[in-house]
């Protein structure tokens, strides 16, 4: 554990920030010492990333003070922060995919540190890579690198730019367990060599072994500031964060029934070699597919929804083959989809609630064959859905782009959870929603399943999987790595499958 230095590496105090009236940070504070690994913990929307974005000049705070190495300094741009030695490794990498590693680094360095040509950049990369023990080949094209390797490029980039305080935003979210622990050990080495490291994460359990102190945030406030990890009571931290993983002991099926969805030998591009995906889903159950994103979940959903043609295999819906069927046909046979990005795939943002709600029905012929658009009927249906699903502050004629995330998702649910539902494919259905909306979504899915539907739930949020599923599967490299009943699930089992060790 690091001893307290006279000047903290980074200190933030009294920070307020609101986005369009909605407060994101309220009197937030944070203090980071040199030589330590400091975890900044909290649930989605707690304000951790926002606070660090303020610190690195991405956002301008509405009020508050900041000091870097004891000197009062509020950077007004990431470039300024970088010049002051403060850098963030983001979740979404800012790399030019078509360029090589060396070209990306040269772009970022642009002459600093003697990097005037690609050859210079390559040399600097190799030196730094050897120095800190992170292997990366400067000549590789970023497009060909794995997520973990791209993260290393980002890290080397910020270190070469002279960062002494390195902030990692959810670094382990896209890594396998082996890659994650490798990264965390690297963070330790970095701190030991004189830097200061912040790990923004919502998985405290994962990072606790490598961390010195913890700060907890909730709803934009700092609820626990810089407590040494050893002094922490896990239960108390869990309470503070609100919601750590709880695995239920058993979950009975209320309406078990026939096989509604049968997938056999499903193959699509990018899968690891081996057999295709095989899943059997019965009425009245939820099968949750866990797994770090980028392991084929999008492709699986696309094959099921009908927007991607599989390379091989069969999909049977209630006994009928829909492998090559159009989305309209699948829908008619009882398939419903809740996509991960509701405005990229599910709703047309510029159209009204009524127009969005009726779209799938009209396309499938539910409104009859007449070419005339029956707006009256659409509005009535929309009004009913708004009441049933408690969509706040909305009239049928309101454009969906004006709705909050939770309400927009409710519109999607209202459309998909209709009378003809047999099989629901739900992809990260409560991503980005607040607690109340999340509960609503999960409740709606539960209710539909209890009435006899089947649900294939695909989510990176393990909590969501465990809250809803009767069986849990893990997806890795485009394949199902294992399936178990909920009462047989343990963290070790899930972790092992994610890394391919089982």
């Amino acid at each position, binding site marked *: 554990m690091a001893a307290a230095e006279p000047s903290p590496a980074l200190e933030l105090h009294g920070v307020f920030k609101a986005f369009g009236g909605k407060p994101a940070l309220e009197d937030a504070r944070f203090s980071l010492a040199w030589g330590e690994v400091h975890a900044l913990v909290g649930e989605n929307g707690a304000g951790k990333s926002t606070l660090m974005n303020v610190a690195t000049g991405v956002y301008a705070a509405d009020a508050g003070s900041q000091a870097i190495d004891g000197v009062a300094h509020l950077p007004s741009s990431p470039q300024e922060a970088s010049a002051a030695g403060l850098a963030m490794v983001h979740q979404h990498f*800012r790399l030019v*995919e078509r360029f090589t590693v060396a070209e990306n680094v040269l*772009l*970022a360095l*642009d002459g600093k540190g003697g990097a005037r040509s690609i050859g210079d950049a390559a040399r600097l990369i190799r030196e730094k890579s050897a120095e800190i023990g992170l292997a990366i080949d400067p000549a590789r094209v970023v497009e060909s690198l794995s997520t973990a390797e791209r993260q290393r490029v980002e890290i080397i980039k910020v270190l070469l730019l002279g960062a002494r305080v390195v902030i990692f935003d959810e670094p382990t979210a896209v890594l396998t367990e082996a890659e994650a622990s490798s990264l965390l050990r690297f963070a330790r080495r970095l701190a030991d060599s004189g830097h200061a490291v912040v790990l923004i994460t919502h998985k405290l359990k994962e990072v606790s072994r490598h961390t010195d102190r913890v700060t907890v945030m909730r709803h934009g406030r700092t609820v626990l500031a810089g407590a040494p990890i050893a002094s922490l009571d896990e239960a108390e931290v869990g309470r503070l964060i609100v919601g750590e993983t709880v695995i239920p002991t058993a979950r009975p099926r209320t309406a078990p029934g026939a096989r509604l969805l049968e997938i056999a030998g499903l193959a699509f591009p990018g899968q690891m070699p081996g057999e295709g995906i095989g899943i059997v889903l019965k009425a009245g159950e939820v099968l949750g597919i866990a797994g770090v994103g980028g392991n084929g979940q999008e492709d699986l959903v696309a094959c099921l929804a009908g927007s991607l043609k599989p390379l091989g295999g069969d999909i049977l819906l209630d006994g009928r083959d829909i492998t090559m069927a159009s989305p309209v046909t699948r829908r008619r046979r009882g398939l419903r989809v809740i996509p991960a990005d509701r405005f990229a795939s599910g709703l047309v943002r510029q159209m009204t609630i009524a127009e969005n709600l009726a779209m799938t029905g009209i396309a499938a012929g539910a409104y009859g064959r007449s070419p005339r658009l029956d707006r009256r009927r659409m509005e009535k249906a929309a009004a009913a859905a708004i009441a049933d699903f408690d969509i706040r502050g909305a009239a049928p004629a309101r454009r969906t782009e004006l709705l909050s995330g939770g309400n927009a998702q409710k519109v999607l649910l209202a459309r998909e959870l209709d009378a003809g539902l047999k099989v629901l494919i739900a992809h990260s259905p409560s991503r980005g929603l607040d607690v109340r909306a999340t509960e609503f979504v999960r409740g709606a899915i539960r209710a539909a399943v209890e009435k006899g539907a089947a649900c294939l739930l695909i989510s990176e949020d393990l909590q969501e999987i465990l809250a809803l599923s009767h069986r849990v599967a893990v997806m890795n490299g485009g394949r199902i790595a294992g399936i178990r009943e909920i009462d047989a699930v343990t963290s070790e089992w899930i972790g092992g499958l994610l890394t391919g060790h089982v």
Partner: protein
Amino acid sequence: MIFLLGWLAIVPTYTTPLLLASIGLILCERAGVLNLGAEGLMALGAMTAAITILAGYSPIVGFLAGGLAAMALSLVFGLAVVVFRAEQTLAGLATVAIGLGLTGTIGRPFVQKTFSGLPDFYALFGLRGAEAWVRLVGHQDAITLLAPVAALAAWWWLYRTRPGLKLRAVGENPAAADIAGTDVQKTQLGAVLFSGLLCGLGGAYLTVAVSHVWVENMIAARGWIAIALVIFARWSPARAILGAVVFGSADALVPRLQAIGADVPVYLMMMLPYALTLLVLFLTALRGRGSGEPQALGATYLRQDKQ
């Protein structure tokens, strides 16, 4: 044989305007801006060059004036799409309209007035005789030699220098370039101005060196062919030389066939460059789209957008 020689001799003069324009367009598109205004910019360059020469200035001055006039128009386009984030396709069409409109209006009184333009090597070196090499060399002028050099220089700048790297980054992933400290707007605006300059020079070449007169419909869709050429060249200035030669050869075939009185319906013959362009676009797409296309081409960049 004579036909072949005669044809090869004039190919470079048809290649040059396409090459010049496409170099500018490649750099512009590499920065992520789709400049569909080429036709209007070339027209403006052609007319301005003619007017300048008719006003008594030297051919070189006319040539440069054409480039500068087109650059001025491209500034309007650049401000519209880079600063005001206007829809690039429509803004490009508006630029064509403005360019063609201006040249049709201002250029009216100067139509069909011939002048002696840029001297070719026949005149410059006093070449005489009917040997093959004389014919081949004599028809060229300084600019036909400089154009490929410019293309290679552009290629070298784009791939081997830091500013070129930054420009390419802006066209592939403007958010990444922005975060790395590149001024996206300045880069894009600079690229647009450069494309304006070169399209203007390409158009100016047509009046200054090829026809020595300004007529209506001077450009005859060559601006659009240049845009198609960029796709064929896979956004590389070096490959643009090859593309320009292919299209220029087809373009040069038409007057040659007419000159020897070939028994081909003249208007069907004149379709050749356009039909060829369509064919080439089709074949290039067959080979596999997106080969070399800058990933952020045509996109509007806003720092505050979720990346």
